[in-house]
């Protein structure tokens, strides 16, 4: 028991804890052709968010990132950029132009940063992982955050399933008929 408590204390000391969280929502979803996951930030402190830069990774054999829609709560002007760095890897970043006072007064503690649209290219489950490069607050001071990843499962369309099942039935029928003839 004492060992467990000590271990817990050590773990809590080793890993930094952050109030803010960057998360993929929903954390799991099934799609056929395409689906959208949102990346949102929650638990911002009083200095809010002035800009962000994070990486997204996924399994390129299962899904592909087709577009990124940036959100700007409070109608703030800003500049967002996203870039495919490699297969299954993209960089997403944005900065808000608003004055710190306006940003602090108007920005909520949590909001959606961007909607990422993925298209299914194969079947299976692809993780959608986030890696923070840097978050910066309204006063241009960097801060850290926890990360909560998600997953997308690509399933064949029902029509495709029926086609496969139909084909299997036809094949089975032929095999059975051959057996009867013999």
């Amino acid at each position, binding site marked *: 028991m004492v060992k467990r408590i000590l271990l817990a204390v050590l773990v809590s000391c080793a890993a930094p804890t952050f109030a803010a969280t960057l998360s993929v929502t929903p954390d799991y979803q099934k799609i056929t052709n395409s689906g959208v996951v949102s990346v949102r930030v929650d638990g911002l402190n009083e200095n809010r968010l*002035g*800009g*962000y*830069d994070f990486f997204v990774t996924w399994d390129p054999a299962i899904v*592909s*990132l*087709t*577009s*990124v*829609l*940036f*959100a*700007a709560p409070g*109608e*703030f*002007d*800003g*500049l*967002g*950029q*996203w*870039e*495919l*760095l*490699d*297969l299954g890897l993209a*960089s997403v*970043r*944005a*900065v*808000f*132009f*608003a*004055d*710190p006072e306006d940003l602090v007064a108007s920005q909520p503690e949590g909001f959606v940063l961007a*909607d990422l649209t993925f298209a299914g290219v194969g079947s299976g489950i692809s993780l959608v992982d986030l890696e923070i*490069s*840097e*978050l*910066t607050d*309204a*006063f*241009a*001071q*960097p801060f850290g955050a926890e990360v909560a990843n998600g997953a997308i499962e690509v399933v064949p369309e029902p029509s495709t399933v029926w086609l496969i099942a139909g084909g299997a039935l036809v094949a089975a029928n032929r095999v059975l008929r051959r057996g009867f003839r013999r």
Partner: protein
Amino acid sequence: MQRSLLGCGLVCAATLASGQVALKPVPALQLEYSIQTNIPAKAAGNQDMETLVTVKNTAAAAQQVMVCVRGDSRFVVAGRELSLGSAVVTVKAAGTQLQCSKETSNTDLDSAIGNMGCRVLQSLAAGASVPLRFVTGSLPRDPNDRTPVQDGISRPSNNQREGKPPGPAGAGHRTRTLTGRYKDDAGAPIKGIRSVREIMQTSTVHFFTMPVAGWEMACLSRDEALNRDDKAFVAQDPPKRDYVLPCATPRNRTLACNQCYGMQTRFVIDKNLPAAVKHSREILNFKDVPLLALQRRDLSIPIELGLARVPPIAGPCNVSLSAQFIPGVGGALAPGFPGEPGTFSLTPSAIDLAAADGAGTLSFTGPASVPSNFAGDFFVTAVHADSCGGLATPGETLLTEWIRVRPQLLCDVNQSGAVDEADIAEIMAAIGTEAEAGNPLDVTGDRLVTVSDARRCALQCAKPNCAP
């Protein structure tokens, strides 16, 4: 006063007299030209940016001319020198075809170098001038009719940052988004992605004269013009199709297939073309490098020269380079100026272009600290030093170039005199790159460009919401 007199010279005099940009001779061809870059032009939805090339036929008879333009979007990675490839004219013997190919390589894709296309003037009358517009990119339309921000800059890919070879096609490219400011055609605010075609900020113009009658030009379809890697690149990210506009007329027999521009374009010209190749020449490799900014990343400027080599040049073909410094108001960097803190040098002083293109470098050497009030201009001249096997006249000016020297304000990356969203866009595009001390991209001074630099500079914008 001294600057205005010395700084204008013959070029400015001609400009003032005609009210237009002065035409320059195309060496060894009976053509004159002028080139103007980054001209805003209204278009539905977006605002196009254009390069305007004016071509004048100085021959006594009509000529058939092909003009090809390509460019790169500046913000070259520190320490990396990019060279623009040539327009390649090849004979396809089996089909008696001439192919003007300006295919984009992976390096080009990584470095945001693109083809703006070619135009064929089937018959340019003697003494006639024709303006040719090449679209270099487009920006989101601003409903308030303000000049849209130009953020056409190249972001180095991860591989470039690490000094590795270019990665898969598409690396280094990005889709830019301006949130909140712009509205779509229906008037709704654009909060999300608005794909912006690359803005080519410099232009290289190539001239070909092709005295062959009865041409037919085919503008290859987009898919045909894409190589394998690019197809995967486009398939993975459909918005990148903006880089390669569909050809409106797949096979245009009027030789005016001017919609066929983009990162990848090939033109095929049929009929009896070996003869055309014999007479076609790549005459001029003109690279506009207008700015030398001390206290920032550029302490030297490459100057590239290209010359006609079809047919091959016999013997040496030396071009001498010289630079004249015209100090600006308060400028203190003129060579020989009292208290001069450093020196400029242009090396080498001569280049032999007989077998290959050449390059010179204008560089600054001196102490790290330079006066904050330095300003001035270099006037670089390249002159033929010999006859180049009979192709040129000794003493003939091949090209001239102005290189501006301006002070650098913190966060004012593009040296416009004020911090606005264009500067923030440059910083955003450079995120992840290392920065030397004093680099205006790295306002936090941690030697790395981060989103905090972008945010800190956003707080220094001259106007609310970093409006231009």
